[in-house]
């Protein structure tokens, strides 16, 4: 496992220690969904929780908020044992677990916000300025008195996040908050999540399939597969560890470049407007110059080379494919 995070005696916003969850069924084999997961989050941190389907992300998140009983392990939220004193721990926790299904479709936007504030013991009077601010920030002012069922999916998702925020907790769990949203709304929501952390100091654990979300919003990422943590590090550090550099070569003319394709990790090759556009992953500068020399040898005219940054998606695929055995 990759980890360069320092461990100290500070009180963490969240500390998960050797968490295990095995689902037993009346018929059939038991399934180990979470297998010794450990990680910690400092106050104000925004951490991405990545993993393929069935990796154990949602089970871990539900264990943290007391909705699933773990088989073994410890969870503490702001120093409170969440397994022994769930009520106290939940007091400082809110979550968006099923996106737009986490709200009451029969209630209006405002009624939903007031209800969820009340569910956390916050009176209408106390939260009124926050409701106004949330309606404005989420662009829901005109829909304040519209039933939630009549809102677009993006608006419902925003409202679900609003309902989690109106509880006034410092710790926020977001399970796939941008799932099913269009590009524009997803971007808006990402920007909002980022602001939450920067301006309000919220501690956020965010699980997503969307690497763009994690890359844009999170400083640190935890990659989980088959119930085990495979990597836990800053996004920047993971980039350095993998040192994977993606380049785009724009070459004049149409070329097959079979030898280059055989010898290098060419991920994409297209022909556009009489040009060959080739994307290739090069792990070091030697490989880069070798490829340029090969093109020169064949008298192929190189028009432009772009260095495309290593994306979270490539890092994620590398880690998952190596199944935890990291170079």
């Amino acid at each position, binding site marked *: 496992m990759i980890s360069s995070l320092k461990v100290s005696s500070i009180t963490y916003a969240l500390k998960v220690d050797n968490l295990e969850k095995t689902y037993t*069924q009346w018929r059939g084999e038991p399934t180990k969904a979470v297998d010794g997961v450990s990680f910690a989050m400092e106050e104000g941190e925004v951490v991405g929780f990545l993993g393929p389907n069935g990796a154990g992300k949602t089970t871990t998140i*539900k264990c943290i908020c007391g909705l699933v009983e773990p088989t073994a392990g410890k969870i503490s939220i702001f120093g409170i044992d969440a397994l022994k004193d769930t009520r106290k721990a939940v007091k400082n926790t809110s979550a968006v677990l*099923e996106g737009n299904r986490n*709200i009451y479709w029969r*209630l209006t936007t405002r009624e939903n916000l007031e209800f969820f504030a009340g*569910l956390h*013991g916050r009176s209408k009077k106390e939260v009124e300025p926050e409701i106004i601010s949330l309606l404005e920030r989420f662009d829901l002012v005109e829909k304040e008195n519209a*039933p939630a069922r009549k809102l677009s999916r993006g608006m419902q998702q925003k409202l679900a996040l609003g309902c989690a925020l109106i509880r006034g907790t410092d710790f926020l769990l977001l399970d796939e908050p941008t799932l099913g949203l269009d590009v524009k709304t997803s971007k808006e929501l990402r920007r909002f999540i980022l602001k939450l952390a920067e301006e309000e100091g919220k501690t956020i654990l965010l699980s997503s399939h969307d690497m763009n979300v994690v890359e844009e919003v999170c400083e640190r990422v935890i990659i989980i597969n088959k119930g085990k943590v495979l990597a836990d590090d800053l996004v920047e550090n993971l980039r350095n560890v993998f040192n994977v550099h993606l380049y785009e070569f724009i070459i004049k003319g149409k070329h097959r470049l079979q030898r280059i394709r055989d010898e290098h990790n060419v991920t994409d090759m297209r022909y556009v407007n009489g040009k060959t556009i080739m994307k290739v992953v090069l792990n070091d500068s030697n490989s880069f110059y070798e490829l340029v020399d090969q093109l020169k040898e064949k008298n192929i005219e190189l028009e432009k080379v772009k260095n495309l940054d290593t994306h979270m998606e490539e890092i994620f695929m590398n880690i998952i494919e190596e199944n935890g055995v990291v170079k």
Partner: protein
Amino acid sequence: MKEHIIFYSIVKKHFIELRRYLLNTLMSMGGVFILFMLVFFGLRSFDAGAETLQGTIVGFAMWIFAAMAYSEMSWGLLQEARDGTLEQLYLTPSTFKRISAYRVIASFIFQFMLFAAFLVIMMVVTGEYLILNPGVVVLVGLTLLSIYGIGYIMGGLSLVFKKVQAGNQILQFMFILFLVLPSITSHNIIYFTPITWGNVLINRMLVGGMSLLDFSLLDYSILLLNSFAYLFTGILIFSYLERVAKQRGLLGHY
């Protein structure tokens, strides 16, 4: 922790939803009323005495009340699981059991208003007048505790097994049996089945003209023991099934 704010939020939400779906509520009550008329005039055609007819009014109203109280616990929970909001109700500094109790109180307030309106309409339509005594609120409240206990059990079963509608239908017919049991048998079983003894006392009040002070300590003891035994058993079984649901990760599923 401001528990009263949580309680107020639950009650307020309940009434908003009822108001928003008033037509649906009224239509379902209309259906129930037609059913009542069929039963009532059917009995009258067999020359049933005034006491039997008045007892039918009380029994029918109690059956409707019990069915509503019970469905709030079981069907209401299932609805939350299906809508995806059930897990959010667990994310509260209060407890889910308390949240459920608040929901029950909210629905009791509404159902009692309906119960009273229903009784008045039935009396006017049938011409059989009951002796209305405000003390009936106490008796109805205590009687329904046993139904809430059964509701907790079915609610817990809903969390684990999800599809328990068939069981709900069977129970609704069982409630009729529990209500008419004293007219079928004088066996001691009437002290042990839910809702039965409470219905006997309510009948004595509304048909026989007795007041709360006229009942003996034994009457109250049987009612209290019966109701609280069902309620606490229901809560215990619910707690167990809730834990099973948490162990199996079933809370958010439908």
